[in-house]
C-alpha cells in the first residue's frame, strides 16, 4: 500500500534529516513510529501524507509515485488517509457533529446521506451525549476521540496519528490505544508516531525507530 524506496529528505543545503528510508506499510498493518525529538518523525509523517516530497528516492502511496502527483490529485489521495494530531485541531466554532462531518461536507456530500454515519461513529467513540457540544467544553480525551472520529468518517485506508496521546493522561492514552487496535482489526492500517514507550509496550506491534535520520524496523 505504501512503499518507501531509498528515500531521503534535505532542507535547503543542510544535511539530510531523513536518509535511506526503505520500508513498506501493508494493508491492515499496525506500527509505531518512534525516535528522539528531532529524529524526523513529523517529516516522515508529512511524506506519508503527501504534504512534502522527498529530495531523493521514491515514495509510493497507494501505487502512485508521490513526486509525480499534481496538486489537483492530492485532495483525493488525502481522503484515503486519516490524520490525528497531538493538538486535536478541531474547529472551535463547530459542534462535534459538524467537526466529524467535515471531511464529507467539504466533498459536497448531502447531510442527509451522512448524518446517521456521523452519529453512529460518535457513539462508537463514546461521545453520543456530546454531539452538539463545542470542543472548548470537552476534556482532552473527548477531543482526541472526536479527532479520531473525524479521521475515520471517510473510511480511510491508512490512519496516521502524530503523538495522539501527548495531551492525555495514561488511562486515557490506553483507552485511545484500544480504539486504534479496534480500528486496525476492522481493516485500517495504523501508524502511530509517539515517544510514549509505555504505550508501545502495551501492544505487540511493529516498531519503526528513527535515529539521526535513519530508520530501523523491529517486527
Amino acid at each position, binding site marked *: 500500500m505504501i512503499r518507501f524506496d531509498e528515500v531521503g529528505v534535505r*532542507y535547503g543545503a543542510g544535511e539530510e*534529516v531523513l536518509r535511506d528510508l526503505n520500508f513498506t506499510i*501493508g*494493508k*491492515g*498493518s*499496525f506500527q509505531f513510529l518512534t525516535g528522539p525529538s*528531532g*529524529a*524526523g*518523525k*513529523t*517529516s516522515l509523517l*508529512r511524506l506519508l501524507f503527501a504534504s*512534502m516530497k522527498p529530495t531523493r528516492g521514491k515514495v509510493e502511496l497507494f501505487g502512485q509515485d508521490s513526486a509525480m502527483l499534481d*496538486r*489537483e490529485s492530492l*485532495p483525493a489521495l*488525502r*481522503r484515503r488517509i486519516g490524520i490525528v494530531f497531538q493538538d486535536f*485541531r478541531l*474547529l*472551535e*466554532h*463547530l459542534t462535534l457533529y*459538524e467537526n466529524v*462531518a467535515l*471531511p464529507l*461536507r*467539504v*466533498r459536497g*456530500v448531502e447531510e*442527509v*446521506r*451522512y*448524518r*446517521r454515519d456521523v452519529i*453512529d*461513529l460518535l*457513539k*462508537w*467513540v*463514546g461521545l*453520543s*451525549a*456530546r*454531539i*452538539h457540544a463545542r470542543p472548548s467544553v470537552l476534556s482532552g480525551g473527548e477531543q482526541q476521540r472526536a479527532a479520531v472520529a473525524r479521521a475515520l468518517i*471517510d*473510511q480511510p485506508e491508512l490512519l496516521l496519528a502524530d503523538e495522539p496521546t501527548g495531551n492525555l493522561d495514561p488511562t486515557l492514552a490506553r*483507552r485511545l490505544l*484500544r480504539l486504534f*487496535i479496534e480500528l*486496525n*482489526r476492522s*481493516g485500517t492500517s495504523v501508524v502511530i508516531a509517539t515517544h510514549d514507550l509505555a504505550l508501545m509496550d*502495551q*501492544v*505487540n*506491534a511493529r516498531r519503526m525507530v528513527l535515529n539521526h535520520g535513519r530508520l530501523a524496523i523491529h517486527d
Partner: protein
Amino acid sequence: MIEPKKKVGPFVVDENTGEFEKPAVVEKTAPKPDVAKPAAAEQFKKPSRIASLAKRRGWSGKAVKPSTAAEGGEDDRPQQSIVPHASVASTALTLVVAIMTFLASLTLGAVTLVNDSARGWTSDVSREVTVQIAPAEGRDLAADILSAQTIAGAMVGIVSVKVMDDAQVSELLAPWLGAGLDPALGGVADALPIPAMIMLGIDLSNPPDLDTLRVRLETEIPTATLDDHRAWVGRLATMAGSMIAIGIVIFLLVVAATVLIVVFATRGAMAGNAHVIEVLHFVGAEPPYIAGQFQKHFLLLGLRGAVVGGVAAIISFIVMGYWTGTSVADPAAEQVRALFGTFSVGPAGYLGVAILIFAVALLTAFTSRYTVMRHVGGLDGTVRSRD
C-alpha cells in the same frame, strides 16, 4: 438509580462518564484481507462500515439508511458556516472597509462638486460683457447710453441689454465706497463721476464678434469701454482646472490608501483563520473549495462595510446640501455654497460611489481568495518540522 452500562460499538461505554471498559486481551494485530474500497457514492447507499461492523459482532446495531430528523430523535439543526462568522478581526475589517469607502466616496463627491462649480463659474463670467460709459465734459451721458444700447442691440449674439440703475451701481461700488451712495436714499452718487454700466448678455452658442463691437462703440462713443472679462475668465479657468486636478490627485491617493488598507486588513483577518484553512486542507478539501468558502464570507463582509461607508457619504452630501440651502444668511454656508454649489452630487457622483462600493467589496473577496490559495500552496510544499 445507577444506569446500567450500555454496549456501544466494540467497547462497553459507561454513559455517565464516557469511559471505556478495558478489554480483556490485547493481542498483536494480524494482516487483514485486501478488501476493495467501495466507490464514493456506493458507500453511502450501503450500510455504514460501523453498522456492518456491529452486525458482524452481533450487537444490536441496525442496517442504516439515509435518515430524516424524525428518526432516532436527532435535531435537524442547520450547520454552522465552515468559516467562523463573528470575530474581532471580522468586525474590525468591516469598520476599516466602511471608513475607507466613506473617505473615498467623500473625495469623489467633492471632486465632482468642484468640477461642476468650476464649470459654472467660468460659464457665468463668460455669459456677460460690460460696457462702461464714463461721464465727460460736454457729452450727454443719457444719449451715449441710448446710443450704446442701440449698437449693442443690433449685434448678432447679444441676447440682452440691461442698463444698471443708480441703486444697482451703488450696490456694486458699496464694498469700496461705502453704503451711502444711493441718491434716492439721500446719497452722494450724483457728486461722483461714476460711469454708467450696461450689462450685455451673450449667446454662448453663437457669441458676438466682440472686437467689432468694441470698435463701433469706441467710434460712436469715445468715453465708452467694453470689458469682456477675458483676463478674469482666463484666471478662473486656470484656478478651476488646478482645483480639479488637485481633487483628482487627492482622490487617487485616497483610493490607493483604501486598496492598501483593505488588502492588509483582509490579510490580517485571514491570519486568524489559518488554522481553519489547515484543518480543511488536512481533511481533503480541494483548494478552490476552501478559497470559495472564504471568498464568499469576505465578499459579504466587504460589501457590508462598503455599503455602510458609501451610504454614509451620500447622507453627508444630503445633509450638507440641506444646510447650505437653508442657511441663506450664514456666511460660512455662503462660502461653502460658493465653492461647492448646492451640494448636488448628480448621477455621475452616485454612480461613482456605487462603483466604489462594489470595487472595495470585490477587492476584499479576491484578497481573501489569493491569501487562501497561497496558504494552501505553502501547506502542500511545507517542509517544517515539529520535532
